Every structure is written in structure tokens, then in C-alpha cells.
């Protein structure tokens, strides 16, 4: 089980570093926005005034929501049922834990995919693999389902999760066909595979009307996307650095291989 052991070792160490880096970035960039949005969570969306501007007006929902919505708070939003961590240390440390654990999971997938293609040979090559991970797990699903803040309307959870997973799988397969396909036809098929989920379209809510200010959400989309980009770059680069220490120089001769 040497390959398995080495893959897990590299993924665990790279995931630990990338997960901690992600936690630090989230602490400053995304979590404050989530907490800010929770102020609006559970508020009734203010009804549009009689002389409502057209739906095209991008200002809608924002100006009046923050003033009027205070008047009629109710339990319109979803509730966090069951056990909820205490705000502060408990909540922060669970976020760090989730970051590290999931980073190890992403690391495993990244290392395995890269090993099938010969393995990541350097930190720079690792960054390219990180870009691929970012495209697959952040960019592609984010086009149809942008990162959401609490309190924003969304379609049912399960169809969104299914679309998310299908989009990730199609994008990963498409990129693999483009990068490693033997001929141009496969590359074209790869592009089609990447485009397909967006032609089908992500499950959308009936209305995007929300009491969460538009500015807050757009800030959050930028913050979540960029922190993910840095996360993937760190994860890929760390795999590139660490793999060199685990690769068996005998077995892999020129390339170096994990067993």
C-alpha cells in the first residue's frame, strides 16, 4: 500500500497548510460578510412599492429592504434546526476544522488525478493543477450557482447539489479530455462537456428578491471566488513541493513516482 500511503501523506500535509491558509483568508474576507448577511436573514422581503421600477432596475430590493424589513421580522427564513455551535471561538474553530478536513479531501482528489497523468513535478506545475481545481470546483459551479449568503433565496437544496456535482464532474472530465485527449475531436468533446451543464442551467429560485443587499452579495462572490483561487494555488503548490520528498527516485527513474 505504498502509493496509497504516500498519496494520503502528501494530501494530508498539503491540505493542512492550504486549509489553514484558507481559514485565515476566510476570517478576514468572507466570514464577516456571512455574519453581516445573517442580520438580514429571516426578514420578509419588503414588498415592492406600487410604482415599482421595472425588474431591470438593478437597484431593486436593496434600498427599501433595509429600512422596511425591520418592521416585520418573522421566521420567514430557514431555521438552523438541531445543534448549532456557539458564536465566537466554537464557530470559528469548527470552520477551521471543516477547512482543513475538506482541504485534505480536495488534496486527495488533486493528487490522484495528477498521479494518473504522471504526477506533479514542481510547485509551479502544482499551481497549474491548482488552477484546474479552481476551475472545476469553484468557477464552473459558481457560474450557475454563485456563492450565496445566508438569507438569500435559492431553489430546493437537493436539485442544486445534484447540478453542482454534475457540473464539477463534467468540467473535470472536459478539462481532462482537452489536456490529455489523443486528438482534436476529444478536445472539442471536452469543450462541449464543460459547456453542457450551463446549457441545461442550474436550478434557480422563483424570485431572486432578497433582503440581503446586492452590494453585500457581490462583495461576497468576489471574496469567496478569490479566496478559493488562492486556496487551490496553495494546495497545488504544496503538493508539488511535498511530492518531491515522497516520490521514489528508483521506481520512477526520470519522472519520479509515488511508488
Amino acid at each position, binding site marked *: 500500500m505504498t502509493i496509497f500511503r504516500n498519496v494520503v501523506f502528501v494530501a494530508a500535509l498539503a491540505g493542512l497548510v492550504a486549509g489553514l491558509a484558507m481559514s485565515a483568508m476566510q476570517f478576514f474576507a468572507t*466570514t464577516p460578510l456571512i455574519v453581516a448577511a445573517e442580520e438580514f436573514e429571516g426578514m420578509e422581503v419588503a414588498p415592492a412599492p406600487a410604482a415599482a421600477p421595472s425588474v431591470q432596475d438593478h437597484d431593486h430590493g436593496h434600498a427599501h429592504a433595509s429600512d422596511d424589513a425591520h418592521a416585520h421580522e418573522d421566521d420567514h427564513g*430557514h431555521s438552523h434546526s438541531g445543534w448549532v455551535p456557539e458564536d465566537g471561538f466554537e464557530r470559528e474553530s469548527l470552520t477551521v476544522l*471543516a477547512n482543513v478536513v*475538506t482541504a485534505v*479531501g480536495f488534496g486527495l*482528489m488533486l493528487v*490522484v488525478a495528477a498521479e494518473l497523468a504522471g504526477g506533479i513535478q514542481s510547485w509551479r506545475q502544482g499551481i497549474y493543477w491548482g488552477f484546474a481545481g479552481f476551475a472545476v470546483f469553484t468557477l464552473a459551479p459558481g457560474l450557475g*450557482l454563485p456563492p450565496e449568503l445566508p438569507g438569500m433565496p435559492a431553489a430546493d437544496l437537493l436539485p*442544486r447539489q445534484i447540478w*453542482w456535482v454534475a457540473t464539477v464532474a463534467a468540467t473535470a472530465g472536459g478539462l481532462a479530455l482537452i489536456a490529455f485527449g489523443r486528438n482534436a475531436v476529444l478536445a472539442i468533446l471536452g469543450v462541449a462537456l464543460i459547456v453542457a451543464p450551463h446549457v441545461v442551467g442550474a436550478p434557480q429560485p422563483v424570485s431572486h428578491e432578497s433582503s440581503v443587499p446586492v452590494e453585500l452579495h457581490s462583495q461576497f462572490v468576489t471574496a469567496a471566488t478569490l479566496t478559493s483561487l488562492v486556496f487551490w494555488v496553495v494546495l497545488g503548490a504544496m503538493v508539488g513541493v511535498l511530492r518531491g520528498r515522497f516520490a521514489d527516485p528508483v521506481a520512477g527513474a526520470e519522472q519520479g513516482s509515488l511508488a
Partner: protein
Amino acid sequence: MNTASRTLSASASSQSRILQLAFAGMLGIFIVGFSGFAHIDAVHNAAHDYRHSMGFPCH
């Protein structure tokens, strides 16, 4: 004879390599799936801020 047995062992080891890689990959998918997608309330609430920040479908 010698060549044949070498080939066999080489293919067996590459099969074991693929198997181990597949196993590691499945483990990764399981970890991400559980922390990002489990419908268990406690898991959702614990990983709540993380799920939002990573753009996982939430709520």
C-alpha cells in the same frame, strides 16, 4: 518465460497502483461529500460558514 513473468508482475503492480489511487480518490470524494453535502443538521451547522465560503449549495 522470464519475459512473460516480468510482464505479468508489471501489469499486476500497475493494477494495484490504479486500485490504490482509486481508493485514495474515493476517500477524497467521501470527505468532501460529507463535510460539504451531508444533510445532517449538526454537520451542516458546524460547517456552515465553510460551506458558504466555498460556494457549496447550502440551506
